[in-house]
């Protein structure tokens, strides 16, 4: 009996917490229940941390060429060997052989030579966050090499290149969405707030932009970029090209919500209380659809990332020496490379995992965005 009362009390306590919780707290509670979305969020955070501190996590520079190790397959980190039993992590060295039949160069594991993997080793100097000079890398080997994902046909470490490439690939999503967001907010806001002819015009423009195939358009626009532009210039040009279509979705959301919220009673109340238009928009309207904006933004980031990857993959986006996942994948356009060096496909996995995580995250946020809905 006493137990029952105790339960009752807890339920009451919980209900009280529920009534008092702010909208954001409710969203967070609901979001936490969506396991896939939480997983997505964690993966995305890990990827961004890897990208931000790529100098620390990568054992080499993305441009360092290891002439003797061109097209080497990935080296597997092991903690068990037949002669030594369980031990600290190490990799085996490679020795080169010529295939007697095809005469193709191939790498064979040399089981007699081990390179122990050391952590927090001193290596090539780099700037952490572009600010602090340091030469500490998370891991490395004293002599010999460690290619977790193998090397490309020029002998560059793919693992390091993937991490450095993540900087462009992951940031272009954010920068592109930010630009689309500005466009979307301004244009959608104007459209929704003024209504009438302006609204009609904007809506028809969006209809139009949505109904044409984006890729041929992107390709043609990207082709018009001068090849001699610097990396930074190309980067922003590509971002803007991707945002040209990207803002439509956001503008739709902003307009739709503005139109609906304009008619709500709390807006009327605020107006009657003498609040200015600016105050109504920023204090009352914006916070009430901020959660929808976040969802929409999250779901448009992967499109930006894919757009950049596709353009760079085709050779129309970022160019060497810039490193992005799309640039890395340029090499696999050559089908013999796919056949003989499948580890060059590893950047694919990163793109897919990133896109999938963002979609899971966006889906979870969408469910959580309206915490009062059942």
């Amino acid at each position, binding site marked *: 009996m006493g137990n029952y009362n105790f339960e009752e009390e807890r339920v009451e306590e919980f209900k009280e917490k529920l009534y008092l919780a702010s909208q954001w707290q409710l969203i967070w509670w609901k979001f936490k229940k969506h396991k896939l979305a939480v997983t997505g969020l964690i993966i995305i955070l890990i990827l961004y941390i890897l990208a931000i501190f790529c100098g620390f996590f990568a054992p080499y520079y993305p441009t360092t060429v290891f002439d003797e190790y061109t097209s080497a397959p990935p080296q597997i980190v092991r903690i068990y060997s037949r002669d030594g039993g369980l031990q600290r992590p190490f990799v085996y060295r490679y020795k080169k052989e010529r295939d007697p039949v095809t005469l193709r160069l191939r790498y064979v594991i040399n089981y007699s030579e081990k390179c122990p993997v050391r952590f927090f080793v001193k290596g090539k100097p780099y700037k952490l966050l572009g600010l602090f000079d340091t030469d500490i890398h998370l891991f490395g080997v004293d002599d010999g090499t460690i290619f977790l994902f193998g090397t490309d046909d020029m002998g560059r470490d793919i693992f390091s290149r993937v991490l450095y490439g993540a900087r462009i690939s992951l940031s272009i999503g954010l920068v592109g969405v930010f630009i689309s967001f500005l466009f979307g907010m301004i244009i959608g806001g104007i459209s929704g707030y003024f209504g009438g002819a302006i609204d009609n015009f904007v809506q028809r423009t969006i209809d139009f932009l949505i109904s044409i*195939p984006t890729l041929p358009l992107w390709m043609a626009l990207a*082709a018009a970029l001068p090849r001699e532009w610097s990396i930074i210039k190309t980067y922003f040009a590509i971002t803007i090209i991707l945002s040209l279509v990207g803002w439509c979705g956001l503008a739709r959301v902003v307009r739709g919500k503005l139109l609906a919220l304009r008619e709500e009673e709390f807006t009327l109340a605020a107006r009657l209380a003498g609040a200015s238009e600016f105050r109504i928009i920023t204090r009352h309207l914006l916070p009430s659809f901020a959660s929808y904006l976040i969802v929409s933004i999250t779901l448009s980031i992967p499109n930006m990332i894919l757009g950049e990857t596709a353009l760079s993959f085709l050779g129309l986006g970022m160019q060497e020496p810039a490193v992005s996942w799309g640039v890395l994948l340029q090499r696999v356009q050559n089908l013999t490379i796919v056949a003989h060096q499948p580890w060059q496909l590893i950047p694919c996995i990163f793109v897919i995992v990133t896109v999938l995580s963002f979609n899971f995250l966006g889906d979870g946020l969408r469910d959580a965005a309206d915490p009062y809905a059942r």
Partner: protein
Amino acid sequence: MLEFIIRRLILFIPLLFVVSVVSFVIIQLPPGDFLTSYIQQLRATGTDVSEETIQSLIKIYGLDQPAYIQYFTWIKNIILRGDFGRSFQWNKPVKEVIGERIALTVFISLLTMCFTWIVAIPIGIYSATHQYTFFDYFFTFVGFVGISMPGFLLALIIIWIAHLYGLNVTGLFSEAFIEAPWSLAKVIDMLKHIWVAIIVIGLSGTAGLIRIMRATLLDELRKQYVITARAKGLPERKLLFKYPVRLAINPLISTIGWMLPSVISGETLVSIVLNLQTTGPVLLRATMQQDMYLAGSFVLILSALTLTGTLISDILLAWVDPRIRYGKVGE
């Protein structure tokens, strides 16, 4: 109905106009005009270009005129003579380069759309009628991965896996048929190769349609008329297909509008990866070489075709769903 079609057609014309302007701007974007590149290229290959030829080309394309007149000349040539300009890279009129390839692209895109529908509708129905069963969860998960899976990366992975089994999945024809004229054997050969492309391009669309189909059908199944019909003893199968499924398919028709652009985009990219004899590879080469008349024409034709597809889907939707015909149009 007729009134609806006419209204839609009137809306359609300004859209085509905007598409043509965008394509023209693309043609004009790179520095220099196409004629300079054309002459340069001819001279590089050792062909002598007489002043007379240059003058006549300038005249045909109105290159000595201001941009807006050039635009009208360009449009006039397209409408009256089907002349899209000249590809200096191929040294042929654009029309000859792209004709067959556009047809193949359209064919593959249509086939892909059919594939998505044929696969998505039954799976959607199954998922909705067997909600929360193992297969429902399975299809939901596969669908989710499918939506996120970029087609061209999937194509790369398929090429690699096929290679492990000694298969070659690239190209649209066997080697013997690439240059051969069209024949029944060539068509059959093409159908043997086309399925990889169709699955790869159609995957994300299929996944999206399954989700929509499942959601709308679930909504319909909860409605009271279903309960009434069931209470009156209508057999379950007849009940399902006679009303809820029919109603759930309607929203799918409206998805053609946004599926078509993404299918065409996907086709362009995937055909480059799989090296299909469609628009993708040519468009890529044209953009790489800044062969802008060719690139611009592709953008124009592909966009115009997509817009036409959307128009047809709008009309179809109005035809199957009278609620759209009366009233709510244009909102």
